[in-house]
């Protein structure tokens, strides 16, 4: 079952790849590189070299406890692993 996590999307190291950053449950940050097909862009607008966009990234919920949810990202984060804990309010049903 897939869901979508709010994030900030900017250009990556390759065309078709994007840099993604977001917040964990405790407001600390995470970042990763993701492929275009795993991202949701607002009104189809992609970031450019100078501007990032608020978008979403596809996640798979693994476990939920109260208002926290452990999700799996499509790629590992640069900080630590592929699974992160976020608040349920950060999760959306669809990418838009």
């Amino acid at each position, binding site marked *: 079952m897939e869901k979508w996590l709010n994030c*900030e999307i*900017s*250009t*990556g*190291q*390759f*065309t*078709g*790849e*994007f*840099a*993604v*950053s*977001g*917040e964990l*449950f*405790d407001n*600390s*940050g*995470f*970042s*990763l*590189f993701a*492929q275009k097909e795993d991202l949701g862009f607002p009104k189809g607008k992609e970031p450019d*070299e100078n501007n*990032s966009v608020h978008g979403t990234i596809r996640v798979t919920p*693994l*476990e939920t*406890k*109260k*208002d*926290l949810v*452990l999700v*799996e990202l499509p790629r590992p984060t*640069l*900080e630590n*692993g*592929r*699974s992160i*804990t976020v608040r349920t309010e950060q999760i959306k049903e669809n990418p838009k």
Partner: protein
Amino acid sequence: MKLGDKISVPKSGKFAYDFTVSGSIADFIGKTSEKHVLEKNRPFTLPPNQFILAQTLEIVGLPTNEGVSHLAARIERKSSLARCGLLVHFTAPTVHPGWMGPLTLEITNLSKTSMNLHYGMPIAQLIIEEVRGRIFENLSQFQGQSTPEGD
């Protein structure tokens, strides 16, 4: 495996990567990289001692289906290129079960002469291995903990 058309060249400048600054590393790396797209008849010339990133032309998929033995893989260099001083990866050769996508290559020219990199040229080899037993998934951060925050 063949060389794909995407090249990423790190920019130089008065900055330093700080991998302890969580949340903005990928964005910073993206902004400090120059993106190139290889064309069929126009190779990318890699000068001596230059490091770039590239991607394989092929997309590698190692699905993890319950009840079926799993596969992992390793990227290995081609000896013909290594003899000339071309490194195509120098760390993290493992492709874990569950991976889906092109593979990123860490290419460095260790020789004293430039090298032309062509779209579609054989660039690496993939060693595929069977994973026996259960795949280790990330343990839930909630296991053995008494508070929602994970304490």
